[in-house]
Structures are given as structure tokens and as C-alpha cells.
């Protein structure tokens, strides 16, 4: 029993939830949507590159390549990098909506139309 179908469904649910939240007018829900979207993208990398359980990518002593099928470490490195980046960017986004809330005095995107056309 592989875990990939469950992970695929979870990724789909996260993308759908994130899209729904980002379409709301509230700034807070917008940021929560962005958080979920970044988690969905990270899990997508994890799911598409294939899951191998219980086989660490270790090369036995005296050999140049590992034996048999091992877990691919690269997607995990990619996800780790992406998590760090999205943590920084989302921290910025949270501060930004707080400042915007202070300046505009509303948690409503429809009240922020001054700079559109």
C-alpha cells in the first residue's frame, strides 16, 4: 500500500482550500491561503518524485553507488530550501498585512482600490 494516492488527494485539497481562501475579501484569509498554497507546492514536490520507505540513501563502505532502490534525497533538499524561503516571504506578508491594516483601518480588500486604474 503506497502513500502516494493519499498524498495526491491531500495536495489537491490544499490547493483548492488555498484558492478558496485567496478569493475571499479578508486580508487574513488571503495570507492563510498563501501559507496553504506554499505547503501544497512543497507536498507536490514530495509526492511527484516518488516515496520510498525504509531505504535511506546511504552508500555501503567500499562502494561508489548505493545498493538497490533508495529514497531520493534531492526532493527533500528542495523542499527544505523552499520551506525556508516561504517562511521568510510569508513573515514579510504577515507584517505587510498588519501595516496595511493599520494604514487602511480595514481587513477588506475591496477598500484597497485606490491604486487600481
Amino acid at each position: 500500500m503506497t502513500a502516494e494516492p493519499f498524498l495526491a488527494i491531500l495536495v489537491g485539497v490544499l490547493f483548492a482550500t488555498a484558492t478558496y481562501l485567496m478569493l475571499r475579501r479578508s486580508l487574513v484569509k488571503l495570507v492563510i491561503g498563501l501559507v496553504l498554497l506554499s505547503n501544497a507546492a512543497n507536498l507536490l514536490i514530495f509526492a511527484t518524485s516518488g516515496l520510498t520507505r525504509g531505504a535511506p540513501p546511504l552508500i555501503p563502505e567500499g562502494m561508489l553507488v548505493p545498493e538497490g532502490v533508495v529514497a531520493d534525497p534531492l526532493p527533500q533538499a528542495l523542499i527544505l530550501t523552499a520551506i525556508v524561503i516561504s517562511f521568510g516571504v510569508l513573515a514579510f506578508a504577515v507584517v505587510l498585512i498588519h501595516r496595511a491594516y493599520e494604514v487602511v483601518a480595514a481587513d477588506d480588500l475591496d477598500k484597497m482600490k485606490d491604486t487600481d486604474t
Partner: protein
Amino acid sequence: MRVEVVLPVIIPLLAGSLALAFWQWRSVQRWVGVLGSIALTGAGFWLLHAVWHEGVLAMHMGGWHAPFGIVLVADLLSATMVVLTGVMGLFVAIYSLVSMRGDHERFGYHPLLQLLLAGVAGAFLTGDIFNLYVWIEVLLVASFALLILGGERAQMEGAIKYVTLNLISSLILLAAVGLTYGVFGTLNMADLAAKMGEAEDTALVTAIGVLFMVAFAIKAAAFPLFFWLPASYHTPPVAISGIFAALLTKVGVYALIRFFTLMFTEAPELTQTILLWGAGFTMLTGVLGAAAQFEFRRILAFHSVSQIGYMIMGLALYTPLALAGALLFIIHHSVVKTNLFLISGLSYFARGTHELKDLGGLYRTHPGLSVLFLIAALSLAGLPPLSGFLVKLMLVRAGLEAESYGIVAVALLTGLLTFYSMVKIWAEAFWKADPRGEGAPANGPAWPGRGAQWLLYGPVIGLAGLAVVMGVAAEPFLQLALAAGEQMLDTDGYIEAVLGAEAP
């Protein structure tokens, strides 16, 4: 070990850190910024010289060879874009010596500008798609912080849209990178280009390609994904608008060119058709949006959208001449649009407003500025003998040769409407009588002293001179662009330079 490939990334990072170290000494920060930009320009020219004589250069970071390690690759397209990054960074750094207010500098304008340049140069040079994502995030974080320097209400509102849409585009890019790794098991651009033909599920590959197209089209502000640009570009101080207009959307266009000439060339009918229609609508919606505006910088922001359409048109036509035209158009647009933003800053210093109805009489009080505006504006509209004429001629000719008459008609119509917009600014801001009356002072209270004003005029004159040189002495630019266009279509050369001669 080719050190010149990595220098354009290291120099701005070093200059930025150095500027951070002098946080309290703002005059030191300013000159570190200018000197860093000079060094970046020099490194860019060195790289271009090396690539011109030796072909595509690759540097394997940390001695790990491609496709396992991360490579930085410079071909003529990348090297030209790096030179452009340095030159525009330099002009804007000089302009901001005077134009940047103290409270903006206090929050780290100079280090952030260098970080932005590092991110842009890294995105142009990397040969790995995940690394491209990382560099795009670096430049985005710097641009987020630059956009809200000062913290006015308009900046906050613009930044919310800018940050949200650019984050969504980054996450689409990340998802596409993950899917690419799942299908091909590699993220190296040259390796991907070599393996692209081996994929079993071509529909999935096309879908991934379109995901990349959407991600980069948001960054490039192409139709129908451009709404963040006119909502935010006119809100920060003009020097920041200038560097954004010069470089940020160009990263999206560069990535589109790189992905759809090197890697995702499997379904050309589909991708080129989408790009061609997107290009046409981008030109038209941008220029029509500008026609409805009466604020100096908003008109320029909408024109940025419309000019992106020309660059994508060059990519969609997909001939050496069209790709050369797209590259020259990127250079032309950076030079001219940044110049127009800097000029709008000068007119703001003179009158204290950006609204066209409150401006006026600038031709009488500032004849030199008016001539500089005319050079930039007529070049944007594409009048000979300026740079805009040359690049539009190349694209129109490429379109006629490819028998895409529809896009040629749209391009020419857009040129005409651009001319209309520029004449509107000329008539309102420069030609009409000053609405404040006859005896009003020529300059507002914000106008800098006699010595300092040359630091504002210098970059504007330099950029106007570049626009004239690109039109009058076009031969070297043309040779470079045509060679770059040939090189973009010769993917084997790129693959061989990165993976070595024994690669398939």
C-alpha cells in the same frame, strides 16, 4: 574555473553586505552602491567579451559537475542581460544619490538595491531551474521591501497586490519545478533540453510547460496576468519605479525566452500560438489602459505592460531575427522606460505633483528637460532615428517574413497609440501654460541645489544618449543581437558547453 561567470552575482552581494556594515554612515552607503554598480557593469562587460570570443561559458559550482551540481551558464543572451543589469543599476544608483529621501535611506535602500541586482544577475546566469526559483525569490524579497519604503497608504495597497500575485506565481513555478523533477529526474537546464525528447507522456510535459508559462507570464506582466503592475509601479519613489521597470519584468521575459527556446520546444504549435495571442492582447490592453490615464507614472506603468507584448511577440515568432529583435527590445525598453520614470521624477521635483492637469509650462522653465523627454518619448513610440524605430522594424520584418500579418498590424497600431500617449504627456506637462499662473516660481521647494541637480540630470542625459546611439550607430548592437538569436536556436551548443562534448 571561469571566475567571470560568477562575479556579477558576487559583486552586488558583497557591495550590499558592505553597505549593511555602514548602516549609520549613509554617505558611505551611497558611494558603496555606486562603486558596486560600476564594478558590476565592468564584470558584465568582461563576461560579454569572454562569451563573444569563446562561446557559451559554464561554471560548475563547488566542482560538482553538471547535471549533479549547480551550474552558472553564460551565453550571449545571459551576458547581455547582465550588462544591462549593471548599466541600469549604475544609472539608478547615481540618480538616487540626490533623489532618495533620508527616511528611505534609513530603512536600507542602498543594501536592498544591491540585493535586487544580485538576484536579477543570478536569475540571468543560473543554469538550473530550482536555482532560478531561488534567485527569483531573492530579487522578489528585495523588491517587496523596496516597494514599501516610506510606508504610504498607496504603497501598502499596491504592495498587497504585488506581493500576493508574485507569491502565487512563485508557487506555481515551484510546483512546476517539482513536476519536472518527477518526470525527468533532473533540474539542470541543459540536461532537461537533452532529455526533453525522451519523455513518454508528452501531454504531461506540455502541461508542465504551460505551468511555467503562466508563472513567468505573471512575472513578465503579460495579458491577462498583468494587473499587479499598474496597481503598484507608480507608488514607490521614482528611482525604485525606474529600476523595477528596467529589470523586474525582464526577468520574466528572459525566463520565457530561456524555457521556450531551450527546453519546452516539444509542442511548438500550442505554446507559440498561446504566446502570439498573449503578445497581441498584452500590447493592446496595455496601450489602451494608458490612454485612459492622466497621471504621469501610471501612463508609464501601463506602457510597460504594452511593451512586454513586443518582447513576447519576438519569442512567439521564433526566428533568429525575431529573437534578436526581442533581445534588442528588452535593452531598448529598459533604457527608455527607466529614463521616462527618472524624467517624471525631475518634473515632480520641479512642480511637486505627478498629475498631468496640475503640471504644465515645463517647456518654458525647463527646455533641456523637455528635449530629453522628447528623445525618450519618441524613442518609445518608435520614431527614427531613435532606438525604438530599429527594434520595431526588426520585429515587424520578422513578422512579415513569418506571414503573421495580424500581429504585425497590432504592433503597428500599438506604436501609433503609444505615440498618442506620449503626445498627451508632452501637451499636458510641457506645452500647455502653467496652471499655477504666470508668476509662479519655476521650481518647487523640493528642487535640489545647482550642484546636486546634475546628479539627477546626469543619468537622464546618459540614458537619452544611449537611446540615440542605439538608433544611429546600430551596427554593433545588431550584430550582438543577431548572434544571440542564432545562439538561442542552437540548443546543441548550449548543452555541449554545460554537459561536455560526450553528452548525447
